[in-house]
């Protein structure tokens, strides 16, 4: 090694490598983050991504949920065109399409009515608070799932934060510390990842922009299935007897986002909207 270091061509090579690394670091933001090709994507005959291909599997033959996912954009475009950012209807109304609607307890129905009439001005996300685990599936930001056999992590650009799903067989806590995201444990039932969560804050978590509440009595079950390469379907069951008269289930879709990366959304950078919200 000592001899090799002293050779001029080795030194030149090393200088070239350092220069190349610096040039790469200095590449424009968009090139750095947004254009990196997602590896391993199945292709159609014409070279386009085949998002209907079967879902990939991990080394232990479980469905592999890894990847960057975005919520469904099932809003209809307005009559004058579609230049805007279409979102998930369930982001606005978690009970969208739910037969009979959300079974609110009377106090919860009154609260949602009041919040709706106020245009959802007090939505905690407006003040840069977390959206909770349900809105991870509907908020128009990207999430990255990192899957290991004993732990699944969901990185969210929305809050520049994480969610952990423990896969090591531990039970849910009996007397959990209330948090925004709660405590989640998961297991596989065939090709479906079943996640049970409890330990939510009693206030501050809205399921949607209407203001459907969640309380500390809530237990949330998510049945997550990667239907094919490009789509992930989650059946979310809310069991919260304090806020709702019966458990109810909403089905949400998320789609794989190719050739992109998570981009920080630090809400507190310049949140001057609050002063204008009425």
């Amino acid at each position, binding site marked *: 090694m000592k001899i090799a270091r002293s050779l001029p061509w080795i030194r030149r090579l090393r200088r070239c490598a350092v220069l190349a690394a610096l040039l790469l670091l200095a590449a424009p933001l968009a090139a750095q983050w*947004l254009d990196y090709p997602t590896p391993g994507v199945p292709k159609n005959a014409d070279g386009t991504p085949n998002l209907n291909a079967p879902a990939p599997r991990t080394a232990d033959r479980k469905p592999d949920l890894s990847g960057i996912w975005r919520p469904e954009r099932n809003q209809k475009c*307005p009559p004058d065109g579609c230049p805007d*950012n279409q979102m998930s209807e369930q982001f606005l109304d978690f009970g969208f399409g739910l037969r009979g609607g959300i079974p609110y307890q009377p106090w919860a129905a009154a609260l949602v009515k009041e919040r709706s009439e106020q245009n959802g001005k007090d939505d905690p996300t407006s003040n840069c608070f977390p959206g909770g685990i349900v809105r991870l599936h509907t908020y128009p930001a*990207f999430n990255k799932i990192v899957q290991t056999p004993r732990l699944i992590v969901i990185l969210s650009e929305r809050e520049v934060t994480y969610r952990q799903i423990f896969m090591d067989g531990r039970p849910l806590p009996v007397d959990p510390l209330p948090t925004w995201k709660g405590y989640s444990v998961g297991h596989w039932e065939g090709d479906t990842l079943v996640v049970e969560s409890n330990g939510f804050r009693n206030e501050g978590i809205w399921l949607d922009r209407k203001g459907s509440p969640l309380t500390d009595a809530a237990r949330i079950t998510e049945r997550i299935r990667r239907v094919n390469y490009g789509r992930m379907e989650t059946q979310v069951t809310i069991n919260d007897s304090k806020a709702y008269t019966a458990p109810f289930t909403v089905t949400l879709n998320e789609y794989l986002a190719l050739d992109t990366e998570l*981009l920080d959304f630090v809400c507190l*950078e310049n949140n001057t*909207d609050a002063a204008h919200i009425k």
Partner: protein
Amino acid sequence: MMSVARRALVTALGVILWTGSIVAHHSFAAEYDAKKPATLTGTVTRVEWTNPHVRFYIDVKDQAGVVTNWEFTMGAVNGLLRRGWTMKMLAPGDSVRVDGYLARDGSHLANARIVTLSDGRKMSGGTAADAPSN
């Protein structure tokens, strides 16, 4: 009292059938008035590539020659970059036209729905739109 310039701006556009919209970070209707569409043209004075919203400011001159600085909000940084924006598209000194909606509180603030750049390109401000049934 609403100034002549403001009134002109408010009435500048025809009725847009789209009457409700939101942005993801907060409710659109809590901050902006969908019944007050406006078109403003002016010179960019400042651009802030920040979250939760990208903001820019333009000097707008009314018919009497009075210059007012208006603030515009767009979507989040990540959303705009994914919609084709780059951080160099807007710079102080650029002439732009903005189609958007005025703030409910009457301040010189508006949501930028469509930004027409000085080279004529029309860029979406990334407003997340609600398409109500009405």
